Protein backbone atom coordinates (compact mmCIF):
# COMPACT_ATOMS: atom_id res chain seq x y z
CA UNK A 1 0.00 0.00 0.00
CA UNK A 2 1.46 3.35 -0.96
CA UNK A 3 2.08 5.37 2.18
CA UNK A 4 1.80 9.02 1.24
CA UNK A 5 1.68 10.21 4.80
CA UNK A 6 4.42 10.02 7.40
CA UNK A 7 2.54 9.21 10.58
CA UNK A 8 3.44 11.05 13.79
CA UNK A 9 4.86 7.90 15.31
CA UNK A 10 8.07 6.36 16.57
CA UNK A 11 8.49 3.57 14.06
CA UNK A 12 11.12 1.69 12.16
CA UNK A 13 9.55 -0.56 9.52
CA UNK A 14 5.81 -0.37 10.29
CA UNK A 15 5.60 -4.11 9.60
CA UNK A 16 7.85 -4.74 12.63
CA UNK A 17 6.12 -2.49 15.14
CA UNK A 18 4.55 -5.29 17.18
CA UNK A 19 7.67 -7.45 17.32
CA UNK A 20 9.90 -4.51 18.25
CA UNK A 21 7.54 -3.31 20.93
CA UNK A 22 7.34 -6.79 22.46
CA UNK A 23 11.13 -6.99 22.46
CA UNK A 24 11.21 -3.67 24.31
CA UNK A 25 8.63 -4.89 26.81
CA UNK A 26 10.76 -7.92 27.55
CA UNK A 27 13.93 -5.82 27.80
CA UNK A 28 12.24 -3.57 30.34
CA UNK A 29 10.56 -6.31 32.37
CA UNK A 30 12.91 -9.26 32.16
CA UNK A 31 12.26 -9.92 35.85
CA UNK A 32 8.62 -10.72 35.06
CA UNK A 33 8.35 -12.10 31.57
CA UNK A 34 10.05 -13.19 28.42
CA UNK A 35 9.30 -12.74 24.74
CA UNK A 36 9.32 -15.89 22.64
CA UNK A 37 10.00 -14.35 19.25
CA UNK A 38 9.53 -17.56 17.26
CA UNK A 39 6.11 -18.25 18.75
CA UNK A 40 5.27 -14.55 18.99
CA UNK A 41 4.07 -14.75 22.59
CA UNK A 42 4.82 -13.15 25.95
CA UNK A 43 5.27 -15.70 28.73
CA UNK A 44 5.53 -15.27 32.49
CA UNK A 45 9.10 -15.85 33.54
CA UNK A 46 8.37 -18.66 35.98
CA UNK A 47 5.81 -20.46 33.80
CA UNK A 48 4.79 -23.23 33.88
CA UNK A 49 4.01 -23.41 37.58
CA UNK A 50 3.13 -26.95 38.56
CA UNK A 51 -0.41 -27.33 39.84
CA UNK A 52 -1.45 -23.74 39.16
CA UNK A 53 -4.22 -23.10 36.65
CA UNK A 54 -2.74 -20.87 33.96
CA UNK A 55 -4.40 -17.91 32.24
CA UNK A 56 -3.84 -17.06 28.60
CA UNK A 57 -5.31 -14.16 26.74
CA UNK A 58 -4.57 -12.43 23.48
CA UNK A 59 -5.94 -10.37 20.69
CA UNK A 60 -4.87 -7.76 18.24
CA UNK A 61 -2.11 -5.37 19.25
CA UNK A 62 -2.69 -1.64 19.67
CA UNK A 63 -4.53 -2.05 22.99
CA UNK A 64 -1.46 -1.86 25.22
CA UNK A 65 -0.92 -2.56 28.07
CA UNK A 66 -3.52 -5.24 27.23
CA UNK A 67 -2.47 -8.09 27.18
CA UNK A 68 1.35 -8.31 27.37
CA UNK A 69 1.51 -5.70 30.14
CA UNK A 70 -0.66 -7.93 32.32
CA UNK A 71 1.63 -10.95 32.26
CA UNK A 72 3.30 -11.67 35.57
CA UNK A 73 2.32 -12.79 39.05
CA UNK A 74 -1.36 -12.85 39.92
CA UNK A 75 -2.73 -12.09 36.47
CA UNK A 76 -1.91 -13.62 33.06
CA UNK A 77 0.60 -16.40 32.47
CA UNK A 78 0.91 -15.64 28.78
CA UNK A 79 -0.32 -13.23 26.15
CA UNK A 80 -0.70 -13.75 22.40
CA UNK A 81 -0.39 -10.44 20.55
CA UNK A 82 -1.63 -10.33 16.97
CA UNK A 83 -0.79 -7.70 14.42
CA UNK A 84 -2.28 -4.28 15.16
CA UNK A 85 -6.07 -4.74 15.51
CA UNK A 86 -5.85 -8.27 14.10
CA UNK A 87 -6.56 -11.39 16.09
CA UNK A 88 -3.53 -13.60 16.68
CA UNK A 89 -3.41 -17.00 14.99
CA UNK A 90 -4.08 -20.38 16.65
CA UNK A 91 -0.38 -21.31 16.53
CA UNK A 92 0.37 -18.52 18.99
CA UNK A 93 -2.39 -19.56 21.35
CA UNK A 94 -1.37 -23.19 21.19
CA UNK A 95 2.28 -22.35 21.88
CA UNK A 96 1.23 -20.14 24.81
CA UNK A 97 -1.07 -22.81 26.20
CA UNK A 98 1.69 -25.39 26.06
CA UNK A 99 4.22 -23.00 27.58
CA UNK A 100 2.13 -22.25 30.67
CA UNK A 101 0.22 -25.45 31.41
CA UNK A 102 1.32 -26.71 34.79
CA UNK A 103 -0.95 -29.71 34.64
CA UNK A 104 -3.96 -28.01 36.20
CA UNK A 105 -5.37 -26.73 32.93
CA UNK A 106 -5.44 -23.42 31.09
CA UNK A 107 -8.14 -20.76 30.91
CA UNK A 108 -8.45 -18.84 27.65
CA UNK A 109 -9.87 -15.36 28.13
CA UNK A 110 -11.32 -14.40 24.77
CA UNK A 111 -12.77 -11.06 23.79
CA UNK A 112 -15.91 -11.47 21.73
CA UNK A 113 -14.77 -10.67 18.19
CA UNK A 114 -15.37 -13.17 15.41
CA UNK A 115 -11.65 -13.39 14.70
CA UNK A 116 -10.59 -13.88 18.30
CA UNK A 117 -13.32 -16.38 18.96
CA UNK A 118 -12.59 -18.50 15.88
CA UNK A 119 -8.82 -18.49 16.31
CA UNK A 120 -9.00 -19.32 20.01
CA UNK A 121 -11.52 -22.07 19.22
CA UNK A 122 -9.09 -23.70 16.80
CA UNK A 123 -6.28 -23.42 19.32
CA UNK A 124 -8.38 -24.95 22.08
CA UNK A 125 -9.18 -27.92 19.83
CA UNK A 126 -5.50 -28.37 19.05
CA UNK A 127 -4.60 -28.15 22.74
CA UNK A 128 -7.22 -30.75 23.60
CA UNK A 129 -5.66 -33.01 20.97
CA UNK A 130 -2.40 -32.54 22.85
CA UNK A 131 -4.06 -33.55 26.10
CA UNK A 132 -4.23 -30.14 27.72
CA UNK A 133 -7.43 -29.20 29.50
CA UNK A 134 -8.61 -25.81 28.26
CA UNK A 135 -11.58 -23.78 29.44
CA UNK A 136 -12.48 -20.83 27.21
CA UNK A 137 -14.50 -17.89 28.43
CA UNK A 138 -15.73 -15.14 26.13
CA UNK A 139 -15.93 -11.56 27.40
CA UNK A 140 -18.78 -9.44 26.01
CA UNK A 141 -19.42 -6.44 28.22
CA UNK A 142 -19.96 -3.61 25.73
CA UNK A 143 -23.49 -2.33 26.10
CA UNK A 144 -23.12 -0.13 23.01
CA UNK A 145 -23.67 -3.23 20.91
CA UNK A 146 -27.06 -4.83 20.64
CA UNK A 147 -27.05 -8.46 21.56
CA UNK A 148 -29.27 -10.93 19.78
CA UNK A 149 -29.34 -14.51 18.65
CA UNK A 150 -28.79 -13.43 15.07
CA UNK A 151 -25.80 -11.12 15.51
CA UNK A 152 -22.17 -11.42 16.54
CA UNK A 153 -23.22 -10.15 19.95
CA UNK A 154 -21.53 -7.69 22.23
CA UNK A 155 -17.85 -6.82 22.06
CA UNK A 156 -15.39 -7.58 24.83
CA UNK A 157 -13.81 -4.41 26.21
CA UNK A 158 -12.98 -3.07 29.69
CA UNK A 159 -14.22 -6.10 31.63
CA UNK A 160 -11.32 -8.03 30.10
CA UNK A 161 -8.82 -6.16 32.29
CA UNK A 162 -10.87 -6.76 35.41
CA UNK A 163 -11.45 -10.44 34.58
CA UNK A 164 -7.74 -11.03 34.00
CA UNK A 165 -6.84 -9.45 37.33
CA UNK A 166 -9.56 -11.11 39.36
CA UNK A 167 -9.33 -14.58 37.82
CA UNK A 168 -5.54 -14.33 37.96
CA UNK A 169 -5.82 -13.86 41.70
CA UNK A 170 -8.12 -16.88 41.96
CA UNK A 171 -5.60 -19.02 40.09
CA UNK A 172 -2.82 -17.71 42.31
CA UNK A 173 -4.81 -18.85 45.34
CA UNK A 174 -5.02 -22.37 43.96
CA UNK A 175 -8.52 -22.41 42.49
CA UNK A 176 -9.40 -25.23 40.09
CA UNK A 177 -9.77 -24.86 36.32
CA UNK A 178 -13.55 -24.76 36.62
CA UNK A 179 -13.42 -22.26 39.44
CA UNK A 180 -11.06 -19.91 37.61
CA UNK A 181 -13.14 -20.12 34.44
CA UNK A 182 -16.24 -19.50 36.50
CA UNK A 183 -14.62 -16.42 38.04
CA UNK A 184 -13.98 -14.99 34.58
CA UNK A 185 -17.62 -15.66 33.71
CA UNK A 186 -18.86 -14.02 36.88
CA UNK A 187 -16.83 -10.88 36.22
CA UNK A 188 -18.16 -10.78 32.68
CA UNK A 189 -21.75 -11.21 33.79
CA UNK A 190 -21.47 -8.51 36.43
CA UNK A 191 -19.61 -5.92 34.31
CA UNK A 192 -20.84 -3.47 31.66
CA UNK A 193 -18.89 -0.96 29.55
CA UNK A 194 -19.47 1.97 27.22
CA UNK A 195 -16.87 3.96 25.26
CA UNK A 196 -16.65 7.28 23.46
CA UNK A 197 -14.09 8.77 21.09
CA UNK A 198 -12.98 12.33 20.41
CA UNK A 199 -10.62 11.38 17.58
CA UNK A 200 -9.64 8.46 15.41
CA UNK A 201 -6.44 6.56 15.96
CA UNK A 202 -3.83 6.06 13.25
CA UNK A 203 -2.81 2.45 12.57
CA UNK A 204 0.94 2.25 11.87
CA UNK A 205 0.49 0.23 8.66
CA UNK A 206 -1.69 2.74 6.83
CA UNK A 207 -0.47 5.84 8.63
CA UNK A 208 -3.92 7.35 8.17
CA UNK A 209 -6.80 8.00 10.55
CA UNK A 210 -9.55 5.37 10.28
CA UNK A 211 -12.27 8.00 10.34
CA UNK A 212 -12.52 11.76 10.39
CA UNK A 213 -14.47 13.25 13.25
CA UNK A 214 -15.46 16.86 12.62
CA UNK A 215 -14.55 19.33 15.34
CA UNK A 216 -17.15 19.55 18.06
CA UNK A 217 -18.47 16.03 17.53
CA UNK A 218 -18.11 12.81 19.49
CA UNK A 219 -18.47 9.14 18.57
CA UNK A 220 -20.68 7.33 21.07
CA UNK A 221 -20.48 3.59 21.58
CA UNK A 222 -17.03 2.88 20.19
CA UNK A 223 -15.03 -0.29 20.57
CA UNK A 224 -11.27 -0.61 20.83
CA UNK A 225 -10.31 -1.08 17.19
CA UNK A 226 -10.51 2.49 16.02
CA UNK A 227 -13.88 1.77 14.46
CA UNK A 228 -16.54 4.47 14.51
CA UNK A 229 -19.21 4.13 17.16
CA UNK A 230 -22.93 3.51 17.08
CA UNK A 231 -23.70 7.15 16.49
CA UNK A 232 -22.19 10.56 16.25
CA UNK A 233 -23.39 13.46 18.39
CA UNK A 234 -22.45 17.00 19.31
CA UNK A 235 -19.67 17.00 21.90
CA UNK A 236 -21.17 18.21 25.16
CA UNK A 237 -19.53 18.98 28.46
CA UNK A 238 -17.66 16.27 30.36
CA UNK A 239 -20.64 16.10 32.69
CA UNK A 240 -23.01 15.45 29.79
CA UNK A 241 -20.72 12.80 28.30
CA UNK A 242 -20.53 11.02 31.65
CA UNK A 243 -24.33 11.16 31.92
CA UNK A 244 -24.53 9.18 28.69
CA UNK A 245 -21.91 6.66 29.78
CA UNK A 246 -23.31 6.10 33.26
CA UNK A 247 -26.87 5.82 31.97
CA UNK A 248 -25.88 3.27 29.32
CA UNK A 249 -23.96 1.13 31.76
CA UNK A 250 -26.22 1.35 34.77
CA UNK A 251 -29.49 0.80 32.92
CA UNK A 252 -28.08 -2.43 31.52
CA UNK A 253 -26.39 -3.60 34.71
CA UNK A 254 -29.62 -3.45 36.73
CA UNK A 255 -27.70 -3.35 40.00
CA UNK A 256 -29.63 -3.25 43.23
CA UNK A 257 -29.64 0.13 44.99
CA UNK A 258 -26.67 0.40 47.31
CA UNK A 259 -24.63 -2.16 45.39
CA UNK A 260 -20.88 -1.90 45.77
CA UNK A 261 -19.10 -1.50 42.46
CA UNK A 262 -15.68 -1.11 40.95
CA UNK A 263 -15.62 1.92 38.62
CA UNK A 264 -13.03 1.74 35.88
CA UNK A 265 -12.40 4.93 33.89
CA UNK A 266 -10.21 3.94 30.99
CA UNK A 267 -8.34 6.21 28.60
CA UNK A 268 -8.21 5.15 24.95
CA UNK A 269 -4.53 6.12 24.66
CA UNK A 270 -4.51 9.79 23.69
CA UNK A 271 -6.48 11.30 26.53
CA UNK A 272 -4.33 12.92 29.22
CA UNK A 273 -4.62 11.98 32.87
CA UNK A 274 -5.79 15.49 33.67
CA UNK A 275 -9.00 14.68 31.80
CA UNK A 276 -9.30 11.08 33.01
CA UNK A 277 -9.39 12.18 36.63
CA UNK A 278 -11.84 14.93 35.76
CA UNK A 279 -14.03 12.20 34.27
CA UNK A 280 -13.55 10.01 37.32
CA UNK A 281 -14.81 12.83 39.54
CA UNK A 282 -17.99 13.01 37.45
CA UNK A 283 -18.37 9.23 37.33
CA UNK A 284 -17.97 8.83 41.08
CA UNK A 285 -20.62 11.47 41.75
CA UNK A 286 -23.08 10.24 39.15
CA UNK A 287 -22.79 6.57 40.14
CA UNK A 288 -23.63 7.50 43.72
CA UNK A 289 -26.55 9.54 42.44
CA UNK A 290 -27.65 6.48 40.45
CA UNK A 291 -27.65 4.45 43.66
CA UNK A 292 -24.43 2.41 43.43
CA UNK A 293 -21.31 2.95 45.50
CA UNK A 294 -17.84 2.88 43.91
CA UNK A 295 -15.80 1.19 46.62
CA UNK A 296 -12.92 0.34 44.27
CA UNK A 297 -11.70 2.14 41.17
CA UNK A 298 -9.15 2.05 38.40
CA UNK A 299 -8.26 5.18 36.43
CA UNK A 300 -5.82 5.09 33.55
CA UNK A 301 -5.18 3.87 30.03
CA UNK A 302 -5.34 0.07 30.35
CA UNK A 303 -7.22 -1.08 27.25
CA UNK A 304 -6.51 1.34 24.47
CA UNK A 305 -6.91 2.06 20.79
CA UNK A 306 -3.41 3.29 19.95
CA UNK A 307 -3.46 7.09 20.38
CA UNK A 308 -7.21 7.55 20.12
CA UNK A 309 -8.57 10.40 22.24
CA UNK A 310 -11.47 8.99 24.17
CA UNK A 311 -12.50 7.08 27.26
CA UNK A 312 -14.62 4.20 28.39
CA UNK A 313 -16.43 3.42 31.59
CA UNK A 314 -16.69 -0.09 33.00
CA UNK A 315 -18.73 -0.80 36.09
CA UNK A 316 -18.34 -4.13 37.85
CA UNK A 317 -20.79 -5.14 40.52
CA UNK A 318 -18.65 -6.49 43.33
CA UNK A 319 -19.29 -9.08 45.99
CA UNK A 320 -17.03 -10.08 48.86
CA UNK A 321 -15.19 -12.68 46.85
CA UNK A 322 -14.55 -10.47 43.83
CA UNK A 323 -13.44 -7.61 46.08
CA UNK A 324 -10.98 -9.84 47.89
CA UNK A 325 -9.59 -11.15 44.61
CA UNK A 326 -9.29 -7.61 43.22
CA UNK A 327 -7.33 -6.57 46.31
CA UNK A 328 -5.01 -9.58 46.15
CA UNK A 329 -1.37 -8.96 45.20
CA UNK A 330 -0.53 -8.48 41.53
CA UNK A 331 2.82 -7.86 39.89
CA UNK A 332 2.81 -7.12 36.18
CA UNK A 333 4.30 -4.28 34.13
CA UNK A 334 1.02 -2.38 34.10
CA UNK A 335 -0.77 -3.32 37.34
CA UNK A 336 1.06 -3.78 40.58
CA UNK A 337 0.17 -3.82 44.22
CA UNK A 338 0.78 -5.88 47.30
CA UNK A 339 4.28 -6.87 46.13
Amino acid at each position, binding site marked *: *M*AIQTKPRKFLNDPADVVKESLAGLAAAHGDLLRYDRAAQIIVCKDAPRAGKVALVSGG*GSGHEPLHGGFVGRGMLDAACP*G*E*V*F*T*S*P*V*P*DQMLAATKAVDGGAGVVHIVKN*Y*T*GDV*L*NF*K*MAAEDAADDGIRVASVVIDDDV*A*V*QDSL*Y*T*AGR*RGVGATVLAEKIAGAAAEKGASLDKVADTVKRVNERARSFGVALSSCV*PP*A*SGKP*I*FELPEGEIELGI*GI*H*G*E*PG*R*RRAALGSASEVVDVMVEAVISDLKARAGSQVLAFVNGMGGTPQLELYLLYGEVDRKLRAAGVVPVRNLVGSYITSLEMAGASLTVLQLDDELTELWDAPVHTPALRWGV
Partner: protein
Amino acid sequence: MDATTVTTWMREIETSVTQERDRLVQLDAAIGDGDHGTNMTRGFAAVVQALSQDQEAPPGRLLILAGRTLVSSVGGASGPLWGSALRSGGRVLGDQATFDGPQLVEVLAAALASVKDLGAASVGDKTMVDALEPAVAALGRTVGEGASLADALEAAAAAAEAGMRSTIPLQARKGRASYLGERSIGHQDPGATSTALMIRALQRAAAASS
Protein backbone atom coordinates in the same frame (compact mmCIF):
# COMPACT_ATOMS: atom_id res chain seq x y z
CA MET B 1 -7.51 -29.29 -13.67
CA ASP B 2 -4.63 -30.36 -11.49
CA ALA B 3 -2.09 -29.21 -8.91
CA THR B 4 -0.93 -26.44 -11.22
CA THR B 5 -4.46 -25.05 -11.34
CA VAL B 6 -4.42 -24.74 -7.55
CA THR B 7 -0.98 -23.15 -7.49
CA THR B 8 -1.96 -20.74 -10.21
CA TRP B 9 -5.21 -19.96 -8.41
CA MET B 10 -3.36 -19.06 -5.23
CA ARG B 11 -0.85 -16.94 -7.15
CA GLU B 12 -3.68 -15.15 -8.94
CA ILE B 13 -5.34 -14.43 -5.61
CA GLU B 14 -2.12 -13.05 -4.18
CA THR B 15 -1.67 -10.72 -7.15
CA SER B 16 -5.24 -9.61 -6.99
CA VAL B 17 -5.50 -8.90 -3.25
CA THR B 18 -2.14 -7.16 -3.33
CA GLN B 19 -3.34 -4.89 -6.12
CA GLU B 20 -6.59 -4.23 -4.29
CA ARG B 21 -5.08 -4.00 -0.83
CA ASP B 22 -5.76 -0.29 -0.38
CA ARG B 23 -9.37 -0.65 -1.41
CA LEU B 24 -9.94 -3.61 0.90
CA VAL B 25 -8.38 -1.64 3.72
CA GLN B 26 -10.64 1.31 3.00
CA LEU B 27 -13.76 -0.82 2.82
CA ASP B 28 -12.81 -2.41 6.14
CA ALA B 29 -11.95 0.94 7.71
CA ALA B 30 -15.44 2.18 6.89
CA ILE B 31 -17.30 -0.59 8.71
CA GLY B 32 -14.61 -2.72 10.37
CA ASP B 33 -11.09 -2.17 11.61
CA GLY B 34 -9.18 -1.47 8.42
CA ASP B 35 -7.01 -4.57 8.25
CA HIS B 36 -8.74 -6.80 5.70
CA GLY B 37 -6.40 -5.79 2.86
CA THR B 38 -3.26 -6.43 4.89
CA ASN B 39 -4.72 -9.65 6.31
CA MET B 40 -5.43 -11.11 2.88
CA THR B 41 -2.12 -9.95 1.43
CA ARG B 42 -0.14 -11.39 4.32
CA GLY B 43 -2.08 -14.63 4.16
CA PHE B 44 -1.79 -15.31 0.44
CA ALA B 45 1.84 -14.26 0.33
CA ALA B 46 2.41 -16.97 2.94
CA VAL B 47 0.32 -19.44 0.92
CA VAL B 48 2.29 -18.84 -2.27
CA GLN B 49 5.49 -19.19 -0.30
CA ALA B 50 4.33 -22.46 1.31
CA LEU B 51 3.11 -23.93 -1.96
CA SER B 52 6.39 -23.14 -3.69
CA GLN B 53 8.11 -25.51 -1.23
CA ASP B 54 5.78 -28.35 -2.11
CA GLN B 55 5.98 -29.10 -5.84
CA GLU B 56 4.92 -32.76 -5.79
CA ALA B 57 1.66 -32.76 -3.84
CA PRO B 58 -1.72 -33.46 -5.43
CA PRO B 59 -4.25 -30.58 -5.67
CA GLY B 60 -6.26 -31.64 -2.62
CA ARG B 61 -3.14 -31.63 -0.44
CA LEU B 62 -2.19 -28.23 -1.80
CA LEU B 63 -5.57 -26.81 -0.84
CA ILE B 64 -5.22 -28.25 2.65
CA LEU B 65 -1.74 -26.76 2.95
CA ALA B 66 -3.06 -23.42 1.70
CA GLY B 67 -5.85 -23.53 4.27
CA ARG B 68 -3.46 -24.39 7.11
CA THR B 69 -1.16 -21.58 6.05
CA LEU B 70 -4.02 -19.08 6.07
CA VAL B 71 -5.01 -20.18 9.56
CA SER B 72 -1.40 -19.80 10.75
CA SER B 73 -0.70 -16.46 9.15
CA VAL B 74 -3.83 -14.33 8.86
CA GLY B 75 -5.57 -14.11 12.20
CA GLY B 76 -8.71 -11.99 12.26
CA ALA B 77 -12.03 -13.43 11.13
CA SER B 78 -10.99 -14.11 7.57
CA GLY B 79 -8.05 -16.36 8.51
CA PRO B 80 -9.95 -19.18 10.18
CA LEU B 81 -12.92 -18.82 7.82
CA TRP B 82 -10.97 -19.06 4.55
CA GLY B 83 -8.46 -21.41 6.17
CA SER B 84 -11.16 -23.91 7.12
CA ALA B 85 -12.84 -23.41 3.78
CA LEU B 86 -9.76 -24.40 1.78
CA ARG B 87 -8.98 -27.28 4.11
CA SER B 88 -12.51 -28.66 3.77
CA GLY B 89 -12.41 -28.15 0.03
CA GLY B 90 -9.07 -29.94 -0.23
CA ARG B 91 -10.29 -32.93 1.75
CA VAL B 92 -12.94 -33.53 -0.93
CA LEU B 93 -10.20 -34.26 -3.47
CA GLY B 94 -8.23 -36.75 -1.38
CA ASP B 95 -5.03 -37.70 -3.16
CA GLN B 96 -6.30 -37.59 -6.74
CA ALA B 97 -4.03 -35.90 -9.27
CA THR B 98 -6.70 -34.16 -11.32
CA PHE B 99 -10.28 -32.99 -10.91
CA ASP B 100 -13.11 -32.00 -13.19
CA GLY B 101 -15.96 -29.49 -13.12
CA PRO B 102 -18.38 -31.47 -10.95
CA GLN B 103 -15.58 -32.13 -8.46
CA LEU B 104 -14.76 -28.42 -8.37
CA VAL B 105 -18.40 -27.82 -7.49
CA GLU B 106 -18.02 -30.25 -4.59
CA VAL B 107 -14.81 -28.54 -3.44
CA LEU B 108 -16.43 -25.13 -3.34
CA ALA B 109 -19.62 -26.47 -1.77
CA ALA B 110 -17.54 -27.99 1.03
CA ALA B 111 -15.69 -24.70 1.44
CA LEU B 112 -18.98 -22.80 1.69
CA ALA B 113 -20.37 -25.28 4.20
CA SER B 114 -17.28 -24.86 6.32
CA VAL B 115 -17.52 -21.06 6.33
CA LYS B 116 -21.17 -21.19 7.26
CA ASP B 117 -20.61 -23.78 9.94
CA LEU B 118 -17.81 -21.83 11.59
CA GLY B 119 -19.16 -18.32 11.12
CA ALA B 120 -22.89 -19.07 11.46
CA ALA B 121 -23.64 -16.51 8.78
CA SER B 122 -26.39 -16.77 6.15
CA VAL B 123 -26.96 -14.89 2.93
CA GLY B 124 -28.08 -11.38 3.83
CA ASP B 125 -25.87 -11.00 6.90
CA LYS B 126 -23.41 -8.85 4.89
CA THR B 127 -20.42 -11.21 4.90
CA MET B 128 -18.30 -13.21 2.49
CA VAL B 129 -21.19 -15.70 2.37
CA ASP B 130 -23.12 -13.18 0.27
CA ALA B 131 -20.53 -13.59 -2.47
CA LEU B 132 -19.55 -17.24 -1.97
CA GLU B 133 -22.99 -18.83 -1.81
CA PRO B 134 -24.28 -17.41 -5.13
CA ALA B 135 -20.95 -18.28 -6.75
CA VAL B 136 -21.20 -21.91 -5.67
CA ALA B 137 -24.84 -22.02 -6.74
CA ALA B 138 -24.05 -20.57 -10.18
CA LEU B 139 -21.15 -22.95 -10.66
CA GLY B 140 -23.28 -25.95 -9.66
CA ARG B 141 -26.13 -24.91 -11.90
CA THR B 142 -24.03 -24.23 -15.02
CA VAL B 143 -21.86 -27.29 -14.59
CA GLY B 144 -25.04 -29.33 -14.06
CA GLU B 145 -26.44 -27.89 -17.26
CA GLY B 146 -23.33 -29.13 -19.06
CA ALA B 147 -21.74 -25.74 -19.72
CA SER B 148 -18.02 -25.56 -20.40
CA LEU B 149 -15.83 -25.05 -17.37
CA ALA B 150 -14.84 -21.65 -18.74
CA ASP B 151 -18.48 -20.58 -19.02
CA ALA B 152 -19.35 -22.06 -15.65
CA LEU B 153 -16.51 -20.21 -13.90
CA GLU B 154 -17.43 -17.00 -15.69
CA ALA B 155 -20.96 -17.42 -14.32
CA ALA B 156 -19.60 -18.15 -10.84
CA ALA B 157 -17.35 -15.09 -10.86
CA ALA B 158 -20.16 -12.87 -12.10
CA ALA B 159 -22.46 -14.24 -9.41
CA ALA B 160 -19.82 -13.56 -6.75
CA GLU B 161 -19.46 -10.00 -8.01
CA ALA B 162 -23.22 -9.48 -7.99
CA GLY B 163 -23.33 -10.93 -4.47
CA MET B 164 -20.54 -8.59 -3.44
CA ARG B 165 -22.53 -5.58 -4.67
CA SER B 166 -25.66 -6.90 -2.99
CA THR B 167 -24.03 -6.31 0.40
CA ILE B 168 -24.07 -2.53 -0.03
CA PRO B 169 -27.64 -1.86 1.14
CA LEU B 170 -27.55 -4.52 3.85
CA GLN B 171 -27.27 -3.96 7.59
CA ALA B 172 -24.55 -6.25 8.95
CA ARG B 173 -25.52 -8.97 11.39
CA LYS B 174 -22.15 -10.74 11.64
CA GLY B 175 -18.55 -9.65 12.09
CA ARG B 176 -17.30 -6.26 13.18
CA ALA B 177 -19.61 -4.36 10.85
CA SER B 178 -22.54 -5.55 12.97
CA TYR B 179 -21.34 -3.29 15.81
CA LEU B 180 -22.21 -0.29 13.68
CA GLY B 181 -25.87 -1.23 13.43
CA GLU B 182 -27.61 0.96 10.86
CA ARG B 183 -24.38 2.80 10.11
CA SER B 184 -23.17 -0.32 8.28
CA ILE B 185 -25.79 0.27 5.57
CA GLY B 186 -24.46 1.77 2.34
CA HIS B 187 -21.01 0.17 2.47
CA GLN B 188 -19.77 -2.85 0.54
CA ASP B 189 -18.55 -5.72 2.72
CA PRO B 190 -14.76 -6.16 2.49
CA GLY B 191 -14.90 -9.95 2.90
CA ALA B 192 -17.49 -10.29 0.13
CA THR B 193 -15.24 -8.10 -2.02
CA SER B 194 -12.15 -10.25 -1.53
CA THR B 195 -14.28 -13.35 -2.10
CA ALA B 196 -15.33 -12.01 -5.49
CA LEU B 197 -11.66 -11.39 -6.26
CA MET B 198 -10.87 -14.99 -5.29
CA ILE B 199 -13.54 -16.52 -7.53
CA ARG B 200 -12.43 -14.27 -10.38
CA ALA B 201 -8.88 -15.49 -9.76
CA LEU B 202 -10.12 -19.08 -9.99
CA GLN B 203 -11.75 -18.33 -13.31
CA ARG B 204 -8.45 -16.98 -14.65
CA ALA B 205 -6.47 -19.90 -13.19
CA ALA B 206 -8.74 -22.48 -14.83
CA ALA B 207 -8.58 -20.63 -18.13
CA ALA B 208 -4.77 -20.67 -17.93
CA SER B 209 -4.60 -24.40 -17.22
CA SER B 210 -6.96 -25.45 -20.03
